[in-house]
């Protein structure tokens, strides 16, 4: 195996990892605050992809920057949808058992999946890469497309932004307080309801953005929602649910195991990821970066 082959394998894993990170970070964020696994997160991702495609159709390809407009519109559209769902329905389930919250998010998966099928049909859709991203960079004899480089850079950038917001800003302090003790924070005069709505929207925004950004690389198909949620789930379980950097390193690990697992056990790369999750769950059920659960 040559160095350039290994390097391109590594870069492929890194690109996949950064996509997963964009998605999984939203999932982990919601879990950290609401303590619920949001199955509908994959549906938000799928809707992001479809909305981006739709906007590209509307504004036509000749319009400069149409792709970025579509990505922005998809992210905002999905965030608004998430906010509406949280305000109108989900918030009434917070004081109910986890089971009902889990099943509600599953109901969203069913409804949104069919709604997308109804609106956009079942055929594969795709979006072309933005023009400035054509071509690639020659590194160690391997070609890395500019778009992949862009994804590899935007992943950590968003990670850093969210992390700074959560740990260094007054809003972040409120969010962390809401995760620790909702009632006490509410008694202190903070509007906990809107903090939750805001976090739900931020999480949906990340999912919608990831869905829009993935369209130049993957075609949009029904079923991409349940497929991605499983991968995001594995990532957050490996990294530790609710742990932000855990999600980051979890996606890095996932991307590389998937990418190099193909070389070691061809046909079993999917299995190697699940095996990794199983081992981590057995040794550290709370994940690599999570804290033990009371």
């Amino acid at each position: 195996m040559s160095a350039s082959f290994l390097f391109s394998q590594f870069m492929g894993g890194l690109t996949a990892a950064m996509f997963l990170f964009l998605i999984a970070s939203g999932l982990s964020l919601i879990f950290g605050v609401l303590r619920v696994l949001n199955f509908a997160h994959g549906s938000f991702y799928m809707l992001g992809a479809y909305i981006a495609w739709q906007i590209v159709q509307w504004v036509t390809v000749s319009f400069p920057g149409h792709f970025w407009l579509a990505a922005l519109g998809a992210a905002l559209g999905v965030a608004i949808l998430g906010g509406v769902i949280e305000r109108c329905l989900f918030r009434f389930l917070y004081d109910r058992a986890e089971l009902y919250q889990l099943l509600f998010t599953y109901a969203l998966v069913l409804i949104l999946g069919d709604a997308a099928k109804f609106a956009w049909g079942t055929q594969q859709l795709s979006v072309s890469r933005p023009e400035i991203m054509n071509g690639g960079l020659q590194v160690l004899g391997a070609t890395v497309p500019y778009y992949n480089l862009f994804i590899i850079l935007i992943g950590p950038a968003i990670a850093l932004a969210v992390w700074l917001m959560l740990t260094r800003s007054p809003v972040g302090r409120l969010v962390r307080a809401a995760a620790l003790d909702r009632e006490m924070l509410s008694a202190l005069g903070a509007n906990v309801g809107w903090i939750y709505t805001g976090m739900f929207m931020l999480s949906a925004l990340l999912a919608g953005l990831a869905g829009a950004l993935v369209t130049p690389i993957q075609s949009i198909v029904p079923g991409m929602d349940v497929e991605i949620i499983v991968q995001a789930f594995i990532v957050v379980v490996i990294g530790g649910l609710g742990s932000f950097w855990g999600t980051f390193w979890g996606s890095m690990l996932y991307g590389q195991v998937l990418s190099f697992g193909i070389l070691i056990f061809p046909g079993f790369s999917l299995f190697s990821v699940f095996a990794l999750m199983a081992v981590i769950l057995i040794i550290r059920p709370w994940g690599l970066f999570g804290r033990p659960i009371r």
Partner: protein
Amino acid sequence: MSRLWGRIPWTLVIFLIVLWVPWLGSRYDTFIATQILIYALFALSLNLLLGVTGLVSFGHVAYFGVGAYLCGILTKTLGVPFLIAFPAAGIGAGLFALVFGFFCVRLTKIYFAMLTLAFSQIVWAICFKWNDVTGGDQGLPEVPFPDLDWMAALPGFDHFRIAEKFFFVTLVIVALCVAALRRLGDSPFGRVLTTIRENPERAAFIGVNVRAYELAAFTVAGIFAGFSGALFGIFNRGVFADYVFWSKSADVMIMTILGGMDFFWGPALGAAVITILNQQITAYTEYWPFVLGTILVLLLFGFPGGILGALDSLARRLRNRAGA
């Protein structure tokens, strides 16, 4: 009134009624009845965890799948007779549940749910990828029916095809399993499980080994799920990796909650309602998931106790009004 209600041996009554389906109904009715019986057993096994013990297992389909694959591999690939393959499928599923449960019961609440989900996805990945044994994404088609030719000798059975004969096998097995589950729920063991559901800390204080009981419940539920899976693989003429996908765990949970998880018969009722609705609605539209999702939302917001829960509170209200 309600004491009399409680004394009726419902398992026997339902068994005797459902027994007549192949004679009185069409072939299609028998087909639907078989499917309902199998799903009812699956949902009832889940409710041993969900309703009785209060454990939210989001990966129950793993044991259904293990049972289905084990029975399918034993009868189709290895040619083992059904009489041996069927118990083996239940025991195999139980062993999986024992091993996975050992790790799961160390966690509680949402973490328990997620670990069970993770294990079920591991089972799915194995079923999906292990081509040599499970057939991978092709699955195991043409799982054989058990040898039921002897049934033709029974009076009134001579004109039945194999599918109707298998209905009787399913009915007898499911009735026995349901009777066992019912007995288990009313036993001291079942009472301890309910105590754990109501208050795990207090259960621990009075000397109950909570984890051991939870693990026992998890294993027993796994065995019965394995039985239902084994029946389903034969009924459906094949076992495919789709059956083990996590969304199936949610589907069986919807059945359980729709019927009412606080009632023994709730999951069975839910299985019947969902199966019949599915058949009716898919005849008109391909958007069955949308309908199911909408039912689920209405259920969660309007009738969290399920159908039996709603009927129960209605009956109580009527009785209060009559009393006043």
